[in-house]
């Protein structure tokens, strides 16, 4: 079964895709006629995400363009704070939602 974190990451990836669509269309000529369809797909994904995950994402989205921050070598790449080692394997395996103690972003381990 797909983890809540992976669904939330897909949700953010689509958000960014919609943001960059105009640039891709104007500068490179890519068609973006499916914008509404993609927004619907994003909303469908949202239905499978736990409310507390989605609310946290949406609250952070008012402050950050990318509310989910990648983690590499136990460092939040959003603010470069060192993360507690206690996050350990659970964070790495997307078991639950962890947020950065310094910037508040949702954390996603990319390694």
């Amino acid at each position, binding site marked *: 079964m*797909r983890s809540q974190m*992976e669904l939330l*990451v*897909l949700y*953010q*990836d*689509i958000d*960014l*895709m*919609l943001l*960059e*669509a105009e*640039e*891709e*269309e104007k*500068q*490179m*000529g*890519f*068609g*973006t*006629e*499916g*914008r509404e*369809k*993609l927004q619907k*797909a994003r909303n469908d994904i949202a239905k499978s995400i736990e409310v507390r995950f989605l609310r946290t994402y949406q609250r952070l989205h008012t402050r950050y363009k*990318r509310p*989910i*921050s*990648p983690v*590499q070598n136990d460092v939040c*790449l*959003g603010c470069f704070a060192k993360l507690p080692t206690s996050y350990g394997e659970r964070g790495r395996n997307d078991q639950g939602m962890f947020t950065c103690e310094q910037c508040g972003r949702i954390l*996603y*381990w*990319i*390694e």
Partner: protein
Amino acid sequence: MNSSDLARLFRPTFFLPALKSKDKEKIIEELVQPLIDSGLVKSKRLVIDTLGKRETLGSTGIGKGVAIPHCRTMAVSDVHVVAGITQAGIDFNAVDGKKVNLLFLIVAPPHDSSNLYLPILGKIVEIVRDTKMRKALTQAETFETFIQIIRGE
């Protein structure tokens, strides 16, 4: 971005001169596979899903036999480019309705600090708009030949 900068992003193992897949979904998977084999992707499903969602926005089959499937995804931590050729051609729902023979897959992390993603995309679009280069790239049989063409040599 210039042609040499772009050429440096390609790797021999990320050049697939004889793609075998017969449909759009499968050929995207075939292009992603070298990244999986190299351990560069955290979740294959996430990459495939995100690329699929990008195709929902609009086909990346830009016409004249070329497709550039691309996306930003947190499943990767660096920008990667994979090139592939299928002489048989596949239906990619391209803007001109023609079959696609030459494909470039681009994946990049959202936090792409060097901000290479859009310049790479733009440079590839520029190269394949040149009829002579596009034809030469489609006929390239080796990585060395392919890179020479990308460099404009």
